[in-house]
């Protein structure tokens, strides 16, 4: 089953529409919290004039690399992209001379803990892991997220336009993830990517069994991990059945609301993307079996240092591998990480995305893509520049289910665009401008467009542009 069934997609549409349900339903629906808006996005596009970038090398992440190309951003969308002749030049557009510069889609990090493990990283900011129970599907990362995390601005300066923030990996089921636009904002609601679905964070292997095993609690083994996921989804099956039945016939009182099972039921309905922290190849195979048992799909394995060993299984399952360029060795399950992981996965037909999982690494995902591409090529594995760019744009967009909106430079896509000082695969290149939905959120040459969080104010001396 490669794609979610039509029925599931309809169910998803219904769930999204629930807050605006018809008046006929409203009488009953308004009586229970489950039918009201659940923490909606308040994201609004920042108004700005059209922007025309000319004479740049444009890498579309959709197959084309255009020398001396142009791109027009208007009303938050990519209006046109191509050679100078192919792109209109409206007089009201702000012109950006792209000579010698390169343009790519905004970079997307599908695995970040910004805001939930915010700087300055004291105990007060340890909000990413609700390690009080091995299954905490009821917690939502957005409820921990601190929009004044100074690391956000640093990531923006590295060309990041969208991130997925996940709960940590201390639990078997850690909670809901959230997809955010990387813009300066006062509330997380303003950053929530409009229309993006939630993800469910799960974790394999060493972390959950260590966290609970040390306390002499369940689970303390990998088999305990598996039993823990299964027990949770068995409960969720029952919960889903009771609620779906009640929603259909509306007979009697609604079933009791259970936040933990509500999230897991959404997974079973196909309305949420399952994102699994998993290092070892054999455990990925176990998790794929778990998903088959309960009839859901795993969108991606994150960290996935051994994914190259099972590229064929991932390809068959339609599950992406979200990996680092070269991290390995910090724990036993990470010992077999190799620099050709991404390239071998690409060769094996699996969908590959890079990720940072790190406030430093998120600032140079372009460099990580460069390393992974060249390390592959060096080993004789064919990887194109377009493919490598897709590892940090179109493919993470797919992992988050927003690939029809962002991830490539194509007309109609959201105007998330980075202008680089040179080839983004060179160590010497830096993001010089970052547009998010057409809004210039970062300009290396203009301090007025270099966001700083409240946390950074009043520092003496102030850090400069080259933070």
């Amino acid at each position, binding site marked *: 089953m490669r794609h979610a069934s039509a029925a599931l997609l309809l169910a998803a549409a219904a769930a999204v529409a629930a807050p605006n349900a018809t008046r006929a339903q409203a009488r009953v629906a308004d009586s229970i919290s489950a039918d009201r808006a659940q923490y909606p996005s308040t994201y609004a596009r920042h108004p700005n004039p059209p922007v025309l970038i000319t004479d740049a090398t444009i890498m579309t992440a959709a197959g084309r690399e255009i020398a001396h190309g142009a791109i027009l951003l208007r009303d938050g969308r990519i209006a046109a992209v191509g050679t100078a002749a192919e792109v209109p030049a409206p007089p009201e557009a702000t012109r950006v001379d792209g000579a010698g510069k390169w343009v790519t889609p905004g970079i997307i990090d599908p695995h970040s803990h910004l805001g939930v493990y915010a*700087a300055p990283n004291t105990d007060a900011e340890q909000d990413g892991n609700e390690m009080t129970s091995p299954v905490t599907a009821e917690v939502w990362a957005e409820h921990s997220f601190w929009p004044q995390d100074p690391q956000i601005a*640093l990531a923006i300066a590295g060309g990041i336009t969208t991130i997925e923030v996940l709960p940590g990996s201390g639990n078997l089921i850690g909670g809901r993830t959230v997809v955010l636009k990387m813009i300066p904002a006062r509330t997380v609601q303003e950053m929530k990517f409009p229309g993006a679905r939630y993800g469910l964070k799960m974790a394999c292997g060493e972390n959950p069994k260590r966290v609970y095993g040390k306390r002499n609690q369940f689970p303390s083994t990998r088999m305990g991990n598996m039993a823990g996921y299964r027990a949770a989804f068995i409960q969720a099956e029952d919960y889903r059945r009771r609620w779906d039945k009640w929603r259909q016939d509306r007979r009697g009182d609604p079933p009791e609301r259970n936040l933990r099972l509500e999230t897991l039921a959404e997974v079973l309905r196909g309305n949420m993307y399952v994102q699994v922290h998993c290092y070892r190849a054999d455990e990925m195979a176990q998790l794929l079996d778990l998903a088959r048992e309960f009839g859901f799909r795993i969108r991606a394995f994150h960290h996935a240092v051994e994914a190259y*060993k099972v590229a064929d299984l991932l390809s068959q399952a339609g599950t992406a591998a979200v990996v680092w360029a070269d991290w390995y060795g910090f724990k036993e399950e990470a010992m077999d990480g190799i620099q050709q992981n991404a390239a071998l996965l690409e060769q094996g037909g699996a969908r590959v995305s890079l990720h940072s999982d790190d406030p430093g690494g998120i600032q140079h995902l372009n460099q990580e893509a460069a390393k992974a591409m060249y390390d592959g090529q060096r080993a004789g594995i064919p990887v194109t520049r377009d493919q490598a760019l897709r590892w940090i744009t179109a493919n993470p967009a797919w992992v988050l289910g927003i690939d029809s909106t962002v991830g490539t430079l194509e007309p109609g896509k959201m105007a998330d665009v980075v202008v680089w000082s040179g080839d983004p695969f060179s160590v010497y290149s830096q993001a010089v401008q970052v547009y998010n939905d057409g809004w210039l959120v970062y300009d290396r040459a203009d301090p007025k467009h270099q966001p700083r969080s409240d946390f950074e104010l009043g520092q003496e001396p102030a850090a400069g542009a080259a*933070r």
Partner: protein
Amino acid sequence: MIALLLAQTLVISGATVYPVSRPKLERATVIIKDGRITAVGTHVAAPANATRIDATGMWVTPGFIDGAGQLGLTEIGNVSGTNDAGVKSDTVAAAFNVLEAINPASTLIPITRMAGVLTTLATPETGLIRGQAVLIDLDGTTVEAMLVRSPAAMVVEISEQTKDLSGGSRASSAARLRQILDDAQEFRTRRADWSRAQLHPLAASAADLTALAPVLRAELPLVVIANRRSDLETALRIAQTYRLKLVLASAAEGWQIADRIARARVPVLIQPLDNIPSYDELSPRLDNAALLAKAGVRVALLEPDTHNARNLRQQAGNAVANGMPWDGALRAVTLTPAEIFGVANRYGSLDSGKVANVVVWSGDPFEFSTRVTHVFIRGKEIPLTSRQTELLERYRKLPPEY
């Protein structure tokens, strides 16, 4: 075949050679014999029976030196049985020298050296006075065979972590350091009194105080890891009082007092990509290395991640992207660290008589597109293989042939 090369003369010819000690040489030749460089130049006659490596179009540099990390001291980050870098039972461990903990069979060593990082500082971890760091070459079956210098530095940390090891205040940890240095001085001259128990109680063990003697004689560099400006200033003050050979490491806020560091002639070890703010470093910057170098400070660059010490070149490239001159960045991963750790007479540049730690690159060593084509450690060609290349070959085609 590699063993045979040992006894032979090696000629690397046709390359762009960066001796570091002087400007680059085009279409130049490097001759290696008996583990040493015997000639570098554009008009060097190659011996008739030499093994030749045509490096036309390639770049040749000295082996990179990473003055940080725990190579040889750790295998798997969170498996404590494989970690030997720190004395956890004592916050003052001046007598602790990591030498005998170094594991020449570590799988991390081939992974690192095949990327051009050939010499690293095995650095002790944890504590106010962490202990003695040892400089090693990344080849050899015994620690004796790997050894470049031991000790190469005494390592101290002044930070929010170490203040809590000394009463809870930065002032109390500074006072403790001064007391230990005072006692080390006194112990040196009154050892006999100490033996007869005619000396006041000392602030550290006799072994620790003895180990600090070369630091007080300014023979052994004192590496102080610190980031906050006030902590860097404390280190400068202590070094001035005791006339120590100070090296600042990490130094995230060093840029704020670059002139003062330059005037004190204190070299600095920098992690170029360190820019995450914390209360220990509220204003780190990516151009820290560039600003320090511009002020005249001798800067060496670090990749502190032991497993990815191979990314030293990425760190250097980012220092350049943020304003450090390219030549300065190359020096900062070769000759400058060699000078800081007192081995510049043998390491850090391609000059006649120096140890033949040499890397042949396909281009600019800092660029991701560049690959290493040859590595020589002490004149011996190192195979470009590791546990990771074996994994790659095993899983290149699926399913693997076990």
